[in-house]
């Protein structure tokens, strides 16, 4: 029996016990306590978490690619070092989350397999191309910014390992957003061409970053259940509103405009009025028809296959060491 692997009896209780187990589970959720790997949980709860956490992990891993591409082209040694640290963090985030998903009884290999055979989703935001250096700024400010907005409430998610992974991740994310903001600020205050480059990147990333919060509340069928389970704490639209509210004053500091002529604070509703989001584009990208979808998956598959010999060598070495120890004993 282990600390974090799910217990077989928790996975397959006797029929009679289920009602009692369900009641105990409900009481833990109701009391705002956390569910831990060895606790019994409803199958749907487990499945929802596996899907959400593994998608989240895949997003962190795929998210390394657009920025990884820019490490060698970043304009200074300092910027290269910063970008490398950020990409390394994203790898770490992926691993924290894979570990959290593994506590639910899915193996790492299975998750990797789902990703490289395109059976798993990841955040569609990473399927957009990154043609200029200003894109690194816009990704940090807008994409990491939206991620933080989404992730801070997840630190209180009812599943313990997920919440704990999110706490670590959120601590590291704030540097990501700030370094992006500073890239944009420097460009915005630079030459007219640099300013233009920064504005162009913000124009391209603004709407996709708002789409990261998911479909509008009335078209988000699974949200209610996730909120009842206290995995999710705020609705998609609530978080989107909160994010826009944070961006407005930040854009002013940057001296850049947000590409929505209809964006204004509405005193009466206490909400931000904004233009209609183009969800057809979102669904196209989500369906894998985004500009870089095939390329991202291909790259991940290549990296996985080309790394096979390393995994095999490590396993062979471990086996050899273990055999030697057995002989000595």
């Amino acid at each position, binding site marked *: 029996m*282990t600390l974090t*692997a799910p217990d077989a009896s928790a996975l397959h209780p006797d029929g009679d016990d289920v009602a009692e187990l369900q009641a105990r589970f409900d009481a833990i959720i109701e009391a705002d306590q956390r569910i831990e790997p060895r606790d019994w949980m409803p199958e749907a709860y487990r499945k929802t978490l596996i899907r959400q956490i593994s998608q989240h992990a895949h997003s962190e891993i795929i998210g390394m690619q657009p920025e990884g591409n820019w490490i060698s082209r970043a304009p200074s040694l300092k910027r290269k070092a910063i970008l490398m640290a950020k990409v390394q963090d994203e790898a*770490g985030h992926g691993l924290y989350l894979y*570990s959290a998903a593994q506590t639910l009884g899915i193996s790492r290999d*299975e998750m990797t397999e789902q990703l490289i055979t395109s059976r798993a989703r990841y955040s569609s935001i990473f399927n957009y191309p990154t043609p200029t250096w200003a894109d690194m700024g816009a990704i940090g400010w807008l994409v990491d910014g939206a991620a933080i907005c989404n992730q801070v409430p997840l630190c209180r998610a009812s599943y313990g390992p997920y919440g704990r992974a999110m706490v*670590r991740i959120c601590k*590291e994310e704030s540097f990501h957003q700030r370094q992006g903001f500073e890239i944009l600020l420097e460009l915005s205050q630079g030459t007219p061409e640099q300013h233009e480059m920064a504005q162009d990147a913000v124009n391209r990333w603004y709407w996709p970053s708002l789409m990261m919060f998911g479909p509008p509340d009335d078209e988000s069928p699974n949200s209610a259940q996730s909120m009842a389970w206290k995995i999710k704490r705020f609705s998609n639209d609530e978080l989107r509103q909160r994010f826009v509210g944070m961006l407005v004053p930040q854009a002013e500091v940057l001296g850049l405009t947000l590409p929505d002529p209809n964006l204004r604070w509405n005193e009466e509703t206490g909400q931000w009025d904004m233009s209609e989001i183009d969800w057809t584009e979102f669904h196209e990208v989500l369906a894998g028809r985004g500009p870089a979808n095939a390329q991202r998956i291909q790259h991940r598959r290549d990296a996985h296959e080309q790394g096979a010999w390393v995994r095999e060598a490590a396993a062979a070495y471990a086996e050899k060491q273990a055999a030697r120890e057995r002989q000595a004993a």
Partner: protein
Amino acid sequence: MSTPGDVAGEGWPLYEVFVRANRGLSHVHVGSLHAPDDDMALRNARDLYTRRNEGVSVWVVRSSAITTSDPDMKGAFFESPAGKNYRHAKYYEKSAEVPHL
């Protein structure tokens, strides 16, 4: 009972990672990882859990080597201290106002 090898298709054993943030503090559980052997587990733990000076010492332990209490036995296993609040200083009220006690 389950050990990491029981999770179908999991190639490498599961390790729990403990980090000592500073001298004078206990090692604290920070998370877990899978690795082919102890050495690799330690190196991976360093890269994964201490990128920002989070610790001065790291322990990795194979999860299968840890014996835990049964979550379903919570009551029976931990019940004995109940009704023994005389084990806490708060129980002794008459001395509450007496200085340095």
